[in-house]
């Protein structure tokens, strides 16, 4: 019986990794209406910056905080200089621009920091807690706690603040937003900044377990997309629950279903999405019919 619970717990821990990146995807989609292919590589790049600061002697906590701020500014700068030029154009053109950014950031990080994999210090102590025969690593609990904290903050931002409301409005209907005095450009810039900071946080959370290298986020991205889609692409809570569902189901199938095995594990999250979307096209929690793209 512990075996099952252990698999469940491992699933939640792995799912939290997908959820962390999925949150950044959802944030950028809610505030700008764009699916950002380069979200993972931006997070990887920020994680390298945090690593650089830490190597230069900056204490971990401070290095992470300053990286979040730097990522926020960098995210805004990317929107201001690059993405804004493509506002209102063909959706696919923008998708390809983010793809170009994906390739560019990957190469740039490799050129600056090299291609070897490195250890990244964990924000949480390294020990584990044994609860009724099931090993719960403090790190996994920490990641889950941070995730729920971020979901709470996003909920407050989008539901309880004027800025959050304006950000959502700007993504939904830029013209009407301008007519009520919302500076749409600033909102989009803010959305990209926050998403970049959130991506950096996700990177810093997952790097200790995945080991930091240029392809840190390459593999996580597809699972993060799956988690975001399962959650409905515009619900933060949906993205986290989506991540957990995928992490657990992937682990369970990998463990108990022989045919699936480790190599076809990827089919599990995609099968889930297929079924969920056929039943509820807006995803588990999503409110909006994401057919616009």
């Amino acid at each position, binding site marked *: 019986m512990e075996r099952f619970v252990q698999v469940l717990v491992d699933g939640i821990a792995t799912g939290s990794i997908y959820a962390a990146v999925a949150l950044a995807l959802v944030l950028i989609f809610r505030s700008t209406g764009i699916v950002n292919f380069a979200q993972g590589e931006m997070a990887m790049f920020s994680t390298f910056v945090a690593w650089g600061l830490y190597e230069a002697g900056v204490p971990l906590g401070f290095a992470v905080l300053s990286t979040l701020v730097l990522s926020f500014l960098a995210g805004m700068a990317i929107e201001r200089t690059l993405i804004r030029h493509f506002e209102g154009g063909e959706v696919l053109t923008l998708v390809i621009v983010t793809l170009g950014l994906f390739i560019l950031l990957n190469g740039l990080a490799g050129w600056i920091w090299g291609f070897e994999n490195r250890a990244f210090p964990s924000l949480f102590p390294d020990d584990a807690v044994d609860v009724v025969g099931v090993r719960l690593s403090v790190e996994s609990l920490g990641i889950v706690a941070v995730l729920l904290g971020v979901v709470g903050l996003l909920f407050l931002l989008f539901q309880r603040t004027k800025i959050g*409301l304006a950000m959502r*409005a700007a993504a939904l209907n830029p013209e009407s937003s301008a007519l*009520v005095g919302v500076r*749409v450009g600033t909102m989009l810039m803010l959305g990209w900044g926050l998403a970049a900071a959130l991506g950096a946080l996700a990177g810093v959370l997952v790097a200790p377990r995945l080991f930091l290298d240029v392809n840190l986020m390459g593999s996580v991205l597809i699972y993060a997309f799956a988690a975001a889609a399962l959650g409905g692409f515009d619900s933060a809570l949906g993205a986290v629950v989506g991540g957990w569902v995928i992490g657990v189901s992937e682990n369970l199938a990998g463990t108990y279903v022989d045919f699936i095995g480790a190599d076809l594990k990827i089919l599990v999250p995609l099968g889930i999405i297929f079924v969920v979307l056929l039943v509820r096209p807006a995803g588990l929690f999503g409110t*909006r019919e994401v057919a616009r793209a």
Partner: protein
Amino acid sequence: MSLLEVEGLHAAYGPVRVLQGLDFSVEQGRKAAVLGPNGAGKTTILRALSGMVNARGRVEFDGQSLVGKPTAEIARRGVAHVPEGRGTFGSLTVEENLRLGAYVRSDGEEVRKDLHQVYGWFPRLGERQGQAAGSLSGGEQQMLAVARALMLRPRLLMLDEPSLGIAPIIGKELFRALGEICDEHGMTVLLVEQNAGLALDFADHAYVLESGRIALSGEADQIKGDDDVRRSYMGY
């Protein structure tokens, strides 16, 4: 000096020239209406004033030029514009739509008071506060759009064909309520409307627009009496 002065207003969509040099003005506290057939360029006037289409000429609002200013800045100067198609935020709730109307204002307490007042003027909106705005009927969405504009406590209220797509009796009711509100607050209004009857009852002054030029202008009841206007726009 009138609140809004427009002189030699030109506007075009690419090669298509729509407004070919308009001159008109709206005095403080008065309600002006622009009539004209479909495609005369009525909507383009409001879009030009709100900076949503590139325009040339002199546009002075309260002594300051609006030409070339971004839409958001124009709104921040107290110009509320209820756009064609109402511009509702479908997936946001009714209350969220209204709160957005008051986005630029920082007097939180006053905004709450205005919210209750709006629910007073339009009870149907009050009943549907938490509902997604997209699920409202055409008439209700029009009320919401007008209410949202009022939440700005605008100095100039611009309305783009409010009667479009809603039942006549609701249209009449909407104009009646709007008339009362504007008179009560001494609101300056620029109304663009195809339904000449409703518009002329509502407005003090009126212009008739034909293919991008002002063909006729004058006091509302004077225009109402004019035979050509009656025959071409009123249909009797």
